[in-house]
């Protein structure tokens, strides 16, 4: 075998197409794998004005036509998109010769393509399970949800190894799909501290657009959906305001927006809670740096990248003690953990952080150090490369080799 492995990554999103956390994950992982000497190909869905082929930081990126077949609904679209992704990736794999060592799929959205390619080329398939349908929906209620769940089960069954980004997800995935321990590997998600490093910018002008000088900034970043628990934060607002003067900035959009706006209106707190919707990357970075506290009140959270981002931006974090958040944050050391689904507990955490400057500084410094030590993309790439190598070692003894 060659010294350095080649990997074909399959992901339904890759910048500039950004829908959720998979896009930045695949972007940073691929780029850092290249730095470790791994040859990386990414096959992803197309995006307006993005080229069909380009090299990004040494990564060969191919974008396929994802709307080639008309589709009656989202799930059917996913399977039809996979048809085209699989066909294009098969042609690409053949074109570059016998040079792909592993296929690496991200979530059920590319299950069919990944599984098919594994068998056609007889190479090992790895999968990163970023989330599960069971977790996203808090159970399986519809035929579509059951179908997606079974597709996830099929993907984890076919995979040589299943990667999860937190111990919480490992145990969740193990239970949800009945997987053996030795098939599961924990490799954390990373955060890019460099994007927060231009700390010399004067943000006071920027800050004044959002809050009065005497107001502390409480920041929420996330989709406005049930699982993110933003309604818990809204319920905590008056409790916090009774102790501290603050401005609550809500970044993100989702189906709960109107309902949340109505609650804020009924409390007469429209001047204290700002709904910013989607903001661009640069604005988000600045907001995270200005925030006196970042709140992550999720009810379900496979990993909790938004907490890591806040930590990298040196904003103290208050998060619910659930899922991946429980592992990222060490209570009283790198952040504050509160009871999930409990506005009183959340308000307590926020107030505690906002009222104590020293405590805030301490959390910030500890958190930043942890991010650099544990969630550095370079280290994650090294771990991932080692995983590829160990899988290829096992593979070399199989009759497929």
């Amino acid at each position, binding site marked *: 075998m060659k010294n350095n492995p080649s990997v074909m990554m399959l992901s339904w999103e890759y910048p500039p197409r950004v829908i959720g956390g998979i896009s930045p994950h695949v972007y940073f992982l691929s780029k850092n794998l290249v730095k470790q000497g791994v040859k990386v190909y990414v096959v992803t869905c197309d995006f307006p004005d993005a080229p069909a082929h380009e090299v990004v930081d040494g990564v060969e990126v191919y974008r396929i036509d994802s709307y*080639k*077949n*008309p*589709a*009656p*609904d989202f*799930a*059917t679209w996913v*399977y*039809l998109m*996979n*048809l085209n992704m*699989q*066909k*294009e990736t*098969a*042609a690409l*794999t*053949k074109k570059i010769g016998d040079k792909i060592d592993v296929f690496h799929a991200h979530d059920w959205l590319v299950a*069919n393509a990944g*599984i*098919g*390619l594994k*068998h*056609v*080329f*007889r190479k090992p398939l790895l999968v990163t399970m970023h989330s599960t349908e069971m977790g996203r929906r808090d159970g399986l209620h519809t*035929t*579509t949800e*059951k*179908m997606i769940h*079974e*597709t996830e089960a*099929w993907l984890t*069954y076919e995979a040589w190894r299943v990667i999860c980004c937190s111990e919480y997800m490992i145990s969740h995935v193990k239970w949800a799909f009945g997987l053996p321990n030795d098939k599961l590997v924990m490799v954390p998600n990373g955060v890019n501290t460099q994007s927060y490093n231009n700390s010399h910018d004067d943000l006071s002008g920027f800050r004044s657009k959002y809050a009065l000088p005497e107001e502390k900034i409480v920041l929420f970043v996330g989709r406005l959906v049930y699982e993110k628990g933003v309604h818990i934060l809204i319920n905590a607002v008056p409790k916090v305001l009774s102790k501290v003067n603050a401005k609550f900035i809500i970044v993100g959009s989702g189906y709960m927006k109107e309902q949340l706006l109505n609650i804020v209106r009924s409390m007469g707190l429209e001047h204290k809670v700002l709904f910013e919707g989607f903001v661009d990357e640069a604005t988000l970075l600045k907001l995270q740096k200005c925030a006196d506290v970042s709140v992550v009140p999720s009810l379900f959270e496979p990993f909790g990248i938004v907490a890591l981002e806040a930590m990298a931006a040196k904003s103290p974090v208050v998060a619910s003690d659930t899922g991946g958040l429980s592992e990222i944050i060490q209570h009283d050391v790198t952040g504050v953990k509160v009871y999930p689904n409990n506005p009183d507990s959340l308000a307590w955490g926020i107030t505690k952080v906002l009222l104590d400057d020293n405590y805030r500084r301490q959390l910030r410094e500890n958190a930043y150090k942890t991010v650099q030590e544990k969630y550095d993309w370079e280290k994650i790439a090294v771990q991932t490369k080692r995983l590829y190598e160990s899988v290829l070692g096992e593979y070399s003894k199989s009759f497929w080799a």
Partner: protein
Amino acid sequence: MRIIIFSWEYPPRVVGKLSEDVKSLATELATNDVDVNIVTYDEASTGLTQESKWVKATRVANPVRTHIGVLTWVLTLNQEVERAAANIYYQAAKKIDLIDVYDWHFIPAAVTLKNGLDIPFVYSVESLEDHRSQALNTTYSMAIKSIEWLGFYEAQKISAESEWMRDEIIRIYKVPEEKIVVIPFDDPSSHAKQILSLFSGVAGGAKVK
């Protein structure tokens, strides 16, 4: 000559007339010394399978049981068809002359195997979505048509059972006429001979035997 036939029905699974037609053709081809492999859908409810001495059938089950429609059902079954076909391919030291695909269901698998492993395929048309759906053009129907289109585009040759069907394929999908061969299914033996000569052309003149 070694071939794989993809058909979503094959005895004991009988949905329409395709099942018996494919069986009769496969048997005829086998008696003409073609190594015939069938990949089809395994439906437990059809009961015991009487295997032929000449034709090897691989029956695959759907890895995903719950589905919202025929489309998603077909699309997840295709990976199992690929798996079965790839197994035959690697077992046969990568020597498969062609794949013969009946109708649209397993076109996705055939297209991937062609693009990834260089195995050409013949698209054998039994019926078209335009006729089945009475040209309703719902999104659902359009999706199936887009798979049929992909099959016509990627196939090396297309076989139709009648001149009417050939003309319909040309009318609906604008396929060049020279790509379509009309082979009526009347006498099984002469039908098989014509199919064989079509296959031989697609497989680059591969000899029978």
